[in-house]
């Protein structure tokens, strides 16, 4: 066992972790630990853009961004936090540019912006260019740029150190226990402030855009220390994943004029969102795709539809919609321009499907994408422990693992990159500020006890169950019964299956008895996280007897603001019981109203 001491410890080195580390390290002794190399983080796979009302090419205002985000959240987002994020957005994007981020440019040299789902001009109701982009690799550029800045500023990294336990002393965060993957050795990181920036948990579902690494490590560690998780029942399914593989095809494709087409060749989004059509919110579009499939309109009778970005289609539908270039001329895009704007999308389709999107249709289906819920925090990234917003001293969360909540029941595209830059920064600032006035808590004699017990239990199990079988069954049932459309009966079924899998998981063991890069051990531990979060998610979803955003119930198809305009908090109690409590949504200026696109 090795022990390290840092004033601020950041867990995770994606966009939120790097931003937090960058800001905290300005005034506090800071380290970032990450189970991957920082540049492998999932932020790098974000494609389409980061939202900010710069108004580079047309009028836009932070107030419109705020309203669109609140509406997108199906009124479950906290309005004070959303307003804060959207106001900070503009300066956050300029800051990224100042760090050298190579955004695409307008002809006059400004940051180029493209339309995205749910982002509108609030006067005309038409889509607005708000997504600041760097081709279709905006997340890659953000991740690289922030890592570059961390290197430049000598931020301390512990690469390939996997956190497995949060240390708490007297109700305050006191550090983290991590396994050094290269040696298998346990390290204790004693800290005054701990920031979780561990990302999402989309590996729970069968069809997913999420990396293998997205196993909900941060929320699981928090949960095991008796703290609640917020709004887990809200998980986003992105409308356009590559059929069967789930690989993300950015909404930027539709931002650039691409349209969804069903098996009959119809542009079906006109029926579901007459005003903004293919650029409706993700929950709306994903449901529309499922309705089409259910009504027998899937392509070739299968469970997929097409995304069409062939230049002749883009131009045809732009003319039909009256969409013009900014100078008022008709749109006339070419294959070369599409390739220049969406090079990675074209590459993915060619590699994984053998399809060329410039001349062919892309087969797509909705794919598990983003956790709106997670570790509850306030708008400064400070973790909270109950329905009264009581702070957990020294504990912070930012990025996808956190729940401020700015995304409510459904996140708008481009707001995740924004979330991690804005709240990563504020979590870093707050954590450093707290550390200045705090002292190191005295750790227990053996701080690794709980972490070791978790791994030892896996090592000692009888090995009668196969880890891959359990993972496969979990993913399938969660996709089938805890996916885009849900019902009480289906979810109850999912819960029983998950609980059975949790019992079977007790019998999974590892065959690798070594210390060096024992990835099998870590993967089994991660599966335990996914199972725990799947259970919590399902319990929270069963309890919520309404449809809102990403939580869509066939037995309760309407939103019910009287009963359910509130955030859920779920605790996994020591006796195995799951306890749910609720806290109100912060409403400032925008009264909930019917949501149409």
């Amino acid at each position, binding site marked *: 066992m090795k022990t390290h001491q840092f004033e601020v410890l950041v867990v995770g080195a994606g966009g939120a972790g790097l931003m937090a580390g960058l800001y905290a390290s300005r005034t506090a002794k800071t380290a970032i630990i990450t189970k991957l190399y920082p540049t492998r983080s999932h932020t790098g796979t974000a494609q389409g853009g980061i939202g900010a009302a710069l108004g580079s090419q047309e009028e836009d205002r932070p107030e419109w961004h705020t309203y669109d985000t609140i509406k997108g959240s199906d009124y479950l987002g906290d309005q004070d936090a959303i307003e804060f994020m959207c106001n900070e957005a503009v300066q956050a994007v300029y800051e990224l540019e100042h760090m050298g981020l190579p955004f695409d440019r307008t002809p006059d040299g400004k940051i180029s912006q493209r339309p995205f789902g749910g982002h509108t001009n609030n006067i005309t109701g038409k889509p607005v260019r708000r997504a600041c982009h760097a081709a279709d690799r905006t997340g890659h*550029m953000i991740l690289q740029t922030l890592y570059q800045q961390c290197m430049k500023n000598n931020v301390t990294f512990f690469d390939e150190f996997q956190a497995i336990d949060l240390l708490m002393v007297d109700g305050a965060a006191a550090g983290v226990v991590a396994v050094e993957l290269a040696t298998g050795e346990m390290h204790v990181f004693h800290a005054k402030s701990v920031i979780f920036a561990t990302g999402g948990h989309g590996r729970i579902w069968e069809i997913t855009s999420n990396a293998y690494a997205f196993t909900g490590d941060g929320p699981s560690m928090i949960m095991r220390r008796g703290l609640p998780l917020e709004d887990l029942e809200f998980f986003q399914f992105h409308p356009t994943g590559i059929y069967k593989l789930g690989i993300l095809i950015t909404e930027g494709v539709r931002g650039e004029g691409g349209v969804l087409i069903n098996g009959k060749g119809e542009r079906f989004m006109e029926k579901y969102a007459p005003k903004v059509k293919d650029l409706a919110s993700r929950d709306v579009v994903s449901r529309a795709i499922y309705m089409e499939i259910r009504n027998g309109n899937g392509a070739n009778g299968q469970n997929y539809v097409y995304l069409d970005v062939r230049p002749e289609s883009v131009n045809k539908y732009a003319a039909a919609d009256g969409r013009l270039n900014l100078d008022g001329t008709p749109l006339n895009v070419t294959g070369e321009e599409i390739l220049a704007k969406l090079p990675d999308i074209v590459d993915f389709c060619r590699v994984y499907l053998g399809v060329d999107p410039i001349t062919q249709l892309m087969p797509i289906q909705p794919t598990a994408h983003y956790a709106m819920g997670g570790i509850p925090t306030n708008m400064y990234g400070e973790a909270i422990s109950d329905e009264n917003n009581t702070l957990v001293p020294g504990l912070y969360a930012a990025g996808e693992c956190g729940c401020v909540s700015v995304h409510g029941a459904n996140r708008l595209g481009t707001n995740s990159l924004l979330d991690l830059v804005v709240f990563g920064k504020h979590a870093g600032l707050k954590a450093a500020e707290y550390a200045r006035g705090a002292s190191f808590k005295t750790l227990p004699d053996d701080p690794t006890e709980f972490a070791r017990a978790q791994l030892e239990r896996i090592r000692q199990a009888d090995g009668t169950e196969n880890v891959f079988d359990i993972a496969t069954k979990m993913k399938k049932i969660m996709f089938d019964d805890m996916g885009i459309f849900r019902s009480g009966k289906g979810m109850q079924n999912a819960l029983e299956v998950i609980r059975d899998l949790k019992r079977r998981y007790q019998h999974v063991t590892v065959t690798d008895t070594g210390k060096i890069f024992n990835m099998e051990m870590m993967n089994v531990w991660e599966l335990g996280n996914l199972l725990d979060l799947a259970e919590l998610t399902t319990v929270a979803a069963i309890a919520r007897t309404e449809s809102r955003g990403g939580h869509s119930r066939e037995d309760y198809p309407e939103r019910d603001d009287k009963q359910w305009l509130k955030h859920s908090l779920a605790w996994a109690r020591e006796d195995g019981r799951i306890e749910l409590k609720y806290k109100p949504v912060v409403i400032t200026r925008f009264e909930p109203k019917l949501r149409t696109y």
Partner: protein
Amino acid sequence: MEVTLKIFRYNPETDKKPSYKSYKLDANEMDRVLDLLEKVKGYQDGTLSFRRSCAHGICGSDAMRINGMNRLACKTLIRDVGTRVTVEPILGLPVLKDLIVDMEPFFDNFRSVKPWFITADPEPEKERYQSPEARARFDDTTKCILCACCTTSCPSFWGSEKYVGPAAIVAAHRFIFDDRDQAAAERLQILNEATGVHRCHTIFNCTMACPREIQITKAIGEVKMAISTGILD
């Protein structure tokens, strides 16, 4: 179809020297090599160790030698490589276990070229302006995901870890040709040393290996030209 994976295995805790083990499994031609490695790990040998994360060619974790070529396992389909597939760790970096190599020398080289934005000018209130043409000048080298496919395919790097290698030069290129950056001269000086661009003998292995299709040899050529002429264009 039946696919045979012949995989380089080495566990320093138990093995005196590396060996190859073969695994037969049922697959289809659209399977990724990574999918099959996962299946081997799940059902045949849980001790098989490799890095992976995003599984679609963006995170750069799973660079491997697949049938003798450096590739990403997640971006290589069975239809591209056939039914007899040899998988080995990338060359030129110490093997730590199975397909996992020590990436530290690679990242040390990367850091040595100062791959971060440098300017002495004060920050404007809004963005710095940059023309689309100036932005396009270095677009290709912004695609790099630091997977090390290029560097570990380069005979000059195999010859000496001290050579910064193609990936580091690509990283430098991205800033040298960015007209907002002001440290081109500093980086060109670093790359003009004995460990720099002069070790490139235009073998093109790097360009062939790059899963992002970056024109690496061309980028290195542009850096060489800038060093010899002192002109950035």
